[in-house]
Structures are given as structure tokens and as C-alpha cells.
């Protein structure tokens, strides 16, 4: 029971933060899907990992909303890859999500710290 609850929380947190994570990773440079997935895994120290089956639908959804834009790009000596870059609208959304997330996290922290005090 406890295990199920944690799994659900984990999944919901992942789902809720997925957009924020993907947008953050393309904020400063264009990246392809595998790189985005890998970076999420590495920077979360393996705590968060998206499989291709959920990563790509996420990217397509963001693209469809016009927050990121994908483009096939060829680099010297490499095969062509699909790179995603953030759009102006995406930046606006990222700013909003980031502050919402930070507000949420600090609120949680304040609540949970009180519990521990």
C-alpha cells in the first residue's frame, strides 16, 4: 500500500515536472531527444528517468503547443538529428513554470520542515 502510494507520487511528480525539465534543458541550446533524456537521468543522479515511450510524446506535445521547435540539423561527420530549441513562447512558459515550481517546493519545504521541527 505504502509502496503503491510512493510509486504514484513518483509518477505524478515526474509528470508534473516533465515539461519544466525538458524546457529547462533546451533553454540555452538546442538538444536532440536522446541528449535531453540522458541529461535528465544524469543530473537527477538517476532519480528521474524517462523512457523513449514517454519522452518523445512529451517533446511532441511541447512542440505542438509552440513552446519548443524541432528541426532536422546535420553536423559535420554525423548523421542528421532532430534538435529541439525553445521558442519565445516557451521561455515565457518556462519562467512561469519555474516560479510556480519554486513557490511550490519552498511551500512544501516550509510545511515539511515545521513537521520535523
Amino acid at each position, binding site marked *: 500500500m505504502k509502496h503503491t502510494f510512493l510509486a504514484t507520487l513518483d509518477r505524478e511528480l515526474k509528470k508534473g515536472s516533465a515539461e519544466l525539465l525538458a524546457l529547462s534543458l533546451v533553454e540555452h541550446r538546442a538538444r*536532440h*531527444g*536522446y541528449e535531453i*533524456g540522458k541529461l535528465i537521468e544524469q543530473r537527477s543522479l538517476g532519480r528521474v528517468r524517462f*523512457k*523513449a*515511450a*514517454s519522452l*518523445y*510524446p512529451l517533446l*511532441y*506535445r511541447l*512542440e*505542438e503547443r*509552440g513552446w519548443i*521547435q*524541432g*528541426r*532536422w540539423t546535420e553536423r559535420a561527420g554525423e*548523421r542528421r*538529428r*532532430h534538435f529541439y530549441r525553445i*521558442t*519565445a*513562447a516557451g521561455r515565457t512558459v518556462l519562467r512561469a513554470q519555474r516560479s510556480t515550481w519554486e513557490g511550490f517546493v519552498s511551500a512544501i519545504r516550509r510545511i515539511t520542515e515545521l513537521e520535523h521541527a
Partner: protein
Amino acid sequence: MPEWKTELKQRLADLDLPASREAEIVEELSQHLDDRYAELRRAGADEGEARRAALDELAESHRMRMELARLRRSRRAAVPVAGEPTRGRFGVRLWQDVRVGARTLLRRPGFTLAATLALGLGIGATSAIFAAVDAVLLRPMPFPHADRLYVPVSVNQARHIDSASVTFADVQDWRGATETFAAVALLRPLELDLAEGGDPERVHVSQVSEDFFRVLDITPAAGRTFVAEDHDPKSTLVGLITDGLWRRRFGGTDVIGRTIHLAEMPVQIVGVLPPRVVWPESTEVVLPMRSALFGEDVRTRRDNMIFGAIARLKDGVSAQAADAAVAAMAARLAQAEPVIRKGWTNALVPIRDDLVDRDLRVALLVLLGAVAAVLLIACANVANLALVRASGRAREFALRLSLGASRARLIQQLVAESVLLTAAGALVGAALAVPAMRALVAMAPEGTPFLDAVHLNPRMLLATAAAGAIAVLISGLLPALSTSVVQLGDALRDGTGGSGVSRRSARLRGLLVIGEVGATVVLLTMAALLIRSFGRLVRVDPGVSIDRVISGRLSIPSARYQDDAARSRFVRAIADRLEALPEIEAAALTSFVPVGGGGFGLGRVFLAEGRPEPPAGPDIGAQWNVVTPEYFRTLGIPLREGRVFTSRDTAASPPVIIVSQSFAKRMFPGQTAVGQRIRSWRDENLYREIVGVVDDVKYTGLSEQEIPLVYVPHTQNSWGAMLVVARARHGDPAALAPVLQRTIAELDPGLAVAQIRTLRESADRSIASQRYAMLLLSVLAAAALGLAALGIYGVTSYVFALRRRELGIRLALGATRANLYGLVLRHGLRLTAAGLAIGAAGSVVATRLVQDLLFDTAATDVASWAAMVATLGAAALAACLLPARRAASAAPTGALRAE
């Protein structure tokens, strides 16, 4: 590396994704799996483990499929251009653009309707007029290599004669000039009564020389052309008839070998010409010329200009070279025969120019220009409308740009909308063009060649498409360019007050309106000049009283009225019989009817008694008119001096003549003409005593100058080709037509009366091309004015809608409503004035084109220009009033709140 694509395709197969999209996803995912696989292998997994682990990435792929399916559905519903990367094939994108364009247009029915109508009007009018120009000016002639065909004419600049007939001897010289001409043919036009196939009818006959069919390269539709022996006076007289006469009089039956009678001469038909393939156009019967019958003077005299001619240039000889050769021959003749050929030269007229009246050509070209101007104005208006919409859509465009749509993509989308709009406009235009063409044909002056050929044709459709393309360029690209430079920040901000696109588009719109007004000014000026000229034309005094007079032609056959006395008696009988009728006030016969009513004035030159013959002294030219005594009374030509002819002027009495005032003044300046004696020294050479002087009369048409005339009594010069004129006692003279026919048939059942029409009709007909040009140009100018006023209204309302806040502040600071009115009116009138300045400059050039169509009116006519300015000013003022009222009634608080 394992192959993933087959696996991936299977998993995505039932999603029904677009093929290109599916291929992209498959490629992207298989790259992902490649990377994962490589990573696992680097970490030490064997091939089988790595492959399984990589495929685990696709675990829960039912969720991926759901997600993708959802995306696919939402993608179909979304507006495709919104930020979507440009990855689809061009055709797919185009189809999307068209669909989105159609939806967008349908969402704004007001805009779409206005724009479609404006474009439709422009395109329709252009196409209709182009069809007429195409038929009359551009259509290929019905003769092979018609560009080599020229009509030689005699020209005398000093006497303002630019296309007189030529002499028999001149044509023989040109025939000899084989280095210039391939062949030259002679022809003599006649009008003869045809007996067969119904009531007697006057038909146009051309007597042609041996080379005629070779020059024009005509092959008959049936039968044969002439052979050498047909020109021999001893052989049976044969002839060809045209397709028109064949169908009209003989019902298209077999006529080859049949004998008909022309002026009671038997003629055997040997051929029928194909439709329209004949020159001159009016020809209905072609007979062989039998020059052996011509007298010595006809064949050798160099001043006997009674023949028509048609020449085919030798291949490789340019028109200029041929013209120069003919002029050089004429110059040699003028030196050799100074008395009769001084001042004369010859020129070659292209056959098309000979067929199409110069005034008509000018009128059509002016109309084409005018209609193109209307099209441009319509396009400018559509561009204006589109700009209003575009600035209203600035936020939409900015959002699309911010969502990743490229600028090129936006422009493409807008161009697609314009293409749709133009296509709709072109459809409306084509629908309008058909009735417009019918109206053009119905209103055209009678005798306009090729009018039967005015119809929808590929060239016209091409012209419509070209017009549409211009419309697209103007109405699509300008707003697209001006819109896509929108700054994102501007558009995402609320309100339009500080928006860059609004200011820029206001400027662009101002420029468009100035252009519209400019083009309108040119049209208005031309229309004003033509209206004024036409007003003068209809009020012009022709020198005769034309109401209640009817005329008709007859030719008295010399076969039955062989001598002068017989012809005189017959003419006298006609006049007497008509005068005796109660419905007729007066009747007479004449060889030349005023205001273009027909017949012809024989040009002759005169010397007064005692004056030396040229070159020792000058002779005076005048046209010769043979009349019966009641002629002057019938037409109401006032007698200035002396007397008119009476029944006592007979063949046996002293020869008499009546002259027009202008002739009397030129022949006897400062003296009285009555009692003097003059002779037509080069032909009749008989002294005639001037017994009267009458007023000048406009003979050839209302727009023509009075020409010096002399009148001689029919009893002393009994011509056979006469016209009967009769004045009704009251009412419409047209009712006299059957009376004329009946009366003449009673006197001679074999005689036809042709071309029966009232003098009023003839007068109207003589100014038909001017009326045509005036009417059409006025309609076009009115359309242009309406469109320009719409433009002024649009831009003024728009500018002051943008400046609502400023107006509110002004009001709040104490400006009166009159101040605000002034503000708006000044703005609108400033635009108008700028357009006026540009248009006036254009008009100075453009009105030179219509100068030839103007009667007694200078292109700089002050009243016309004033009328133009007044009309434009009134329209502009009216166009500004509504926006001004709206601006002045804006409550300060409301205006400020709107911000």
C-alpha cells in the same frame, strides 16, 4: 547495430499518421534506440542484452501510441500555420494555406465581399474592354501575311487630305516597281441595285483588276476567281458574291452559274467568298474591272483620283522602304506635273489601319488605359482593406511568429489568401465581363469592324489572369510585407496605439489613397473634357434644320433613263409626287446630304471669270452638290443673297450655280458674289452664273468643319446617283420611310431606296464614336471616383480610430467639435490634394491622347479642369464627413476609457 525501424513501424502502424510524419518519428526513435544500444554495449552488455534493454525503452508503448494519437487528432483540428515548422511537402502546405485562407476569408464576410466586388469590377471591366481591343485592334486579319498588305493613298497636307483615292496611272507605275511590290491591284467601289432574291436592294460592288485576288491571297469558298478573259469587255460579265450576301439574299443555296442583275446588267455568279474575307469590308459583290473601256483621260490623267488600290510588299522590303519609294515617285510626279500634282504625295497605310477608324482606335486605347487605371484603383482599395485587416490581425500574426511560424510562412499564408480572393474576383469579373461585352457591342458606333468577333477567348482569359496576378501582387504582397515586420513586443502588448505596424500601415494606406486619387484625377479630367466636348458637339449648329427630315438613296439606272432629259423628268416627278402628299411639307433630291447623311460631294476646283489658270493664279476648291429647286427649303438652309433655283432653271436656260458663304468669301473677298461667273476649270469648264449665296452647312458630320460647297440644279447636271430628302409636316420623320418606298415604287417598281434614315439619326451616327468614348469613360471615371472616395473614407476613419485617444485629450483640453471636424477634413483633403497634384501632372500628359477625340475643346479647357476639381473635392469631402462626425462626437471620457 540492430535494425529498429521495422519494429517501430509495426507499433505505429495503426495510428494512421501522415506518411512523412511517421517516417520522422521512426527515424528519431530508432536513433534514440541506437544511442541506448551503443551505451549499453559500452557498459559491457552483450548484443542480446543490449537489444532487449534498448527495446525496453518502448515499454508501455500503448501510452506513447495514445499520446501520439491525441496529438494527431489535435493537429488536425489546429490552425496548421500556427507555429508549425515548415516540414511538409510544398503541395501539402499550399493546400493547407488554401484551406486556412478560405476559412479566414469566410470569417470576415464583409471584407471578403467588398474586396471580391472591387476586384471583380476591375477585372470584369478590363476583360470586356480588352475583348473589344483584341477583336478590333489585335485580331489577325483574314488575309495571309496581312502585315505585307498596304493601302496606297494620296496625301495633300496643305489641303488637310490624308487618305484620298489614287489615280489609275499611279497604280500602273507602282506595278512597275517590282523591286518594292509583289503585286498591286486596283479597285473601284460602286453601288448598284440588285434585283434577285427579294425586293431590289442597293449592294456594295467592287470592280477589281487582274491582281486583286493574288494581292489579298483569297481563295473562294466555292467556285473560282477571275481569269484574264473575264476582264475582256467582250466576254460574259461574271462576278463573285460574299458569304454575307449569299446567305442573306440567296439562303445559302447553290448559286454558281446563276445569273443575277445588277443595275439591270446580267452578271453570272462564278464564286462565293468565305465569311469576312474581303476588302473593303463593305463589299458584297466583286466584278472584274474592264479597263479597256476606260477613256484615255481616266487611264492617263494624274489628277483623276477615283481608284482604290491594295498592294502587297515584296518579301524582305520594309514598310519604311516601300513608303519612301512611293513618296519618291510622287515627288518626281509633282515636279513633272506641277499644275495638278503640286502638294500631293502618296503614302502606304497598313490594311488594319485602313479598316479601323483612327478615332475608334484612339478611343479603344484610351478606354483600355482607363480601365487598367480602374483595375489598379480597385487593387489599391483591396490592398487598403487588407491593410486594415492586417493591422487588426497584428496580434494574431505576432503570436504566430512567436509560436515559431517563419516570416516567409506568414507571407505565404497571406499570399494564399490573396490568390483565393483574386480567384473569386476573377470569377465575378468573368461573370460581369460577358454582359459588359454585350453592352460594348450594342453601344458601339455602327460600322465598327470585327465587332461580331468580340467574345470570350483564350487571350481574354489570359488577360483576366494577368489582371488577377497584378491584383494579387498589389493586394497580397504589400500588406504581407508590412505586417510581417511586426515587432513581437508591440503585438504582445495590448492596444494598438503605440504599435509600429499601425503607424507604418497608416502611412502605406495614405500613399495608396494618394495613388488612387491620382489615377482618378486622370480619368475624371479625360471624362470632363469628353463630356464638355460632347456637349458642344450636340449643340453645334449644322447649318440645316435637321429635325423632321428623312433621307434615302436611289440610283437611277442609266439603262432605262438614258438621257439627261429622262433623268431630269424622273427626278422632277419624284419630288413633285412627294410634295403633293399631305404628310410631307417639302421634298427634294440631292447628291450630298448634310451631317453625314450620305451621298458625296465631288471635289472640284474653280476659277472666276477673268482670272488666270494655275500656276499663274490660284484656284478655289469646293464640293459639288447637284440638287432640285426645293432642296434649300426642305433642309432649311438660309439664303443669304440672291435667289434659290426655280423650275425656270432648265437645261436650256443659262447655266447657274449657288455657292456657300465660305466659298463666296474665299473666291470674292470683299465683293458680292451674286452675278459673278465661275467655272470648274479642270472638268466641266463651263461658266456658271452665281445666282445665290447660302449659309455654310456641316456636310460630313457634326464634328467636322464646314466645307465650301457649290450647288447646281439637276436639270443642268442630271446625275443618276441621288438621294431623296423629305421634311415631315409634323411628328417623327421615321414614319415617312414606307411613304418614300411606296411612292418611288409607284413611279418605278424596279428602283430600290436604300439607307433610309432620319437626319437626326445621321447626325447622331456622325458623333457616335465620341458619344461612345464619352459614355464609357464617364462610367469608368465614376467607378474610379467611387473607389477613391471609399479609399479616402477608409484611411481617414482608420487614422482617426487610431487617434481616438488624442482626440479625446484635445476635447478634454477644450477643443471644440468644429476643431475636430476641421482636423479630420484637413487630413482627408490633404490626401486628396496630394493625389490631385500627382493626377494633374499625369493628366497633362494623358489628355493629349484624347485631344483627337475632342471637338472645339482644348485639352487645357479651364471649365473641364474646374469641374474635375469640384467633383473630386465634393467626393473627398463627402468621404471625410462620416469619419469627421464620428471623431467629433467621441466623448472625451469614452475615448480615454477605450485605451
